[in-house]
């Protein structure tokens, strides 16, 4: 076992100890198919949580997206994202000649699965924001890749904004049924539908909580 593998196991163990990281597979079984998981984004822990909720065999081929300027900044950060998580780096500055989705497209051509947070930023309060169009373009280019919606629940209580130490509170990740792009479907319609598929996975009890604040 390499150092990176050991680090991965340790992180998954910590995530389980702190949050339980329970995966509920409601709409699809955890299978080694090529997939794009897309989820709501509330905290820095979201990626680790999804990753820990996946069965171990799937973790190696499921990759996160990381901002290149931040995650290659320090030696440890770079090592962690490169060796442990095998992240796909994207640059946040948009240059004219390069498609920002290009690294993602390369990864999907490679046969890897991806986890993306289509809101683009973290939304701590209330329902998820509108989805960015990247998901639509990927769905268009890779019709054979399954798009799995996921809802991450409770994680904002584990580590609220501005705190660094997480409090142990149980969280769940609910995976729903695959969403497919209908032939000729409009971008806006598809993104709204995808967002609705994510929101629909929110457990009833936590919906109540969001409503009452």
């Amino acid at each position, binding site marked *: 076992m390499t150092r990176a593998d050991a680090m991965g196991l340790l992180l998954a163990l910590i995530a389980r100890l702190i949050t339980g990281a329970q995966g509920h597979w409601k709409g699809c079984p955890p299978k080694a198919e090529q997939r794009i998981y897309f989820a709501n984004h509330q905290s820095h822990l979201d990626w680790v949580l999804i990753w820990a909720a996946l069965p171990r065999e799937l973790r190696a081929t499921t990759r996160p997206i990381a901002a290149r300027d931040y995650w290659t900044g320090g030696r440890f950060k770079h090592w962690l994202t490169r060796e442990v998580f095998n992240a796909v780096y994207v640059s946040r500055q948009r240059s004219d000649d390069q498609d920002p989705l290009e690294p993602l497209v390369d990864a999907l051509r490679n046969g890897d699965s991806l986890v993306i947070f289509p809101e683009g930023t973290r939304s701590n309060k209330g329902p998820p924001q509108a989805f960015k169009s990247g998901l639509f373009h990927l769905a268009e280019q890779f019709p054979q890749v399954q798009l799995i919606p996921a809802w991450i*629940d*409770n994680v904002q*209580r584990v580590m*609220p904004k501005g705190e660094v130490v997480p*409090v*142990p*509170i*149980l969280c769940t990740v609910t995976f729903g049924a695959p969403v497919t792009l209908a032939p000729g479907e409009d971008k806006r319609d598809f993104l709204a539908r995808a967002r609705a598929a994510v929101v629909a996975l929110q457990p009833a009890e936590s919906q109540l909580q969001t409503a009452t604040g």
Partner: protein
Amino acid sequence: MNQLKAWSADQQVALLFVVLFGLLLLASAAVALLTLRERNALQEDGYERMRRELRAVWAGAVVFWAAWVSGPAGATVLFGVVSFLALREYVTLVKTRRGDHRSLLLAFFGVLPLQYVLVANLNFDLFSVFIPVYVFLAIPVVSALAGDPQRFLERNAKIQWGIMVCVYGLSHAPALVLLDFPGHSGRGAFLLFFLVVVTAGAHLAQTTASRYLRRRPVARHIDRNFSLRAWGLGIAAGAALGAALFWITPFEAGQALAMASIAAAAGTLGELVMSALKRDAGVRYWGNTSSVTGAVGLLDRVAPLCFAAPVFFHSVRWYFQLKP
């Protein structure tokens, strides 16, 4: 019987575990044989529940055995972990706010380990007052410093209550194992075993009684099954079990009866309090696998012990004038 008395403490405890695991094996085998028969959906449900309960008992027995085998340090760490998991489940279910973050960190990473260190060090005097005195002052201070005045009292009460039940209560279980009874040293495992058997027996008797008696519930909105008659029967069953087991404890038969009824009463009332808490949090079962929290139902299982252990421990310590 006399021959058994001549054995060393370790041998006696070993025998206890051989008997315990033997009984569990028999029970598992019986359930496995029963499931071979054809059955309808309703029976299927019952079997599923039985298997789940049996698994929980197995897990409990293994924890208990591991606690004994690994000595004082191991027992403390083990119950510390159970305590941590129970508190995690509790905090998930009672709704906390952002301002509680620091207080919760203090509870999980400060209070919990310290309390168990005190147990392992046998500082029983400090161990008894550490949480009720020092922590109950510290938690509101940390909360106040977080600067969120909304529902201040309610939030603090939630956290303090969680610490009281999941940490303070449960930490008395390893304390029982480590309690030094004159002329009974090294046999602390028997005391814990006694306590667990009595509370579990009382719980079982009460549930069975309430199913058959169908008396008017005392507090309908909290627990439909809790009636005074069933509760009394539960205590009586616990006391009888305790009296029958007096020979594994340092007690006389009469003392065992009294101690067992105290433990049984505390355990069954603790369950009532826990169901009130559940109702408040809006959950039917802690162990509901489909609930938002994915809680595993640990809290449900340890709750009677959390209430019975401190009462039992302090009754024993006070009555027998034990010095640490």
